[in-house]
């Protein structure tokens, strides 16, 4: 599987990076009092955070090594 090839650690780093960028944009949107701040939050920040969470969950689902295989 291609995802397995990428590796859990790489996926974790991608996930962390997406979450961090999304959260930083969320802070900007909260401190910026303007109608566009809602757009920045709803379409960019929340999207990046959501994608980061998804990548993390994917890393858990598809790259998890079964314990028996790990023992060998």
């Amino acid at each position: 599987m291609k995802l397995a090839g990428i590796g859990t650690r790489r996926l974790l780093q991608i996930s962390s990076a997406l979450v961090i960028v999304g959260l930083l944009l969320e802070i900007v949107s909260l401190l910026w009092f303007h109608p566009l701040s809602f757009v920045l939050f709803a379409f960019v920040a929340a999207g990046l955070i959501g994608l980061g969470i998804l990548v993390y969950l994917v890393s858990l689902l598809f790259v998890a090594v079964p314990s028996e295989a790990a023992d060998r």
Partner: protein
Amino acid sequence: MIEILICQIAISILLASIFLIRPSLTSATGWKIVAFIGLCVLPVLCIVGGMNTHVQRSETTRFCTSCHVMVPFGQSLSSDDANHVPAQHFQNHRVPADMACYSCHADYTIYGPLNDKLRGLKRIYLQYVTTPPAAADIRIPGGFKNAQCLHCHAGARSFEENPVHLAMMDTLKSNQVSCLGSGCHDTAHDIVNLDHQKFWKPIQ
């Protein structure tokens, strides 16, 4: 409350940074739990908290009037005219002053808040992507509905006992006769004549 949310975001960023720099930590069970909290639980809470804050903020008068095209509508709230319906509501706190726009323009139906947000996004699109209409040309799609007035006034003694209202209550409730367009309460956001109006200044 925004400070608490920012603290929560900062903690989430801190935890995510650990796994950005040292992803190998997750091989230990304890760190797996920390990763789940830092990369799933806290970010979800941050999204929920951020959405809640933004939705509440989008209902404030300050937010509405921060849009360039809405500035004259905001100014009209300070009109020193006893017949100016929005100004009288705003100045006499018949609606919460910090949520004056939303109180009268909200769609009080089950999906109303969602519709309001979608309309707001459409206006942002008009403002930044296409040519925005002039402030004087802005009209509420479908006109101002009586339901928005009746949301507060229906059942109020002064409204129900008024002989004029009493005589036409059914037509008012069925929106056949508009509260604003019937010649009774027809001065609302008179921004065309804004330059000729006197303004009320609150005592500091």
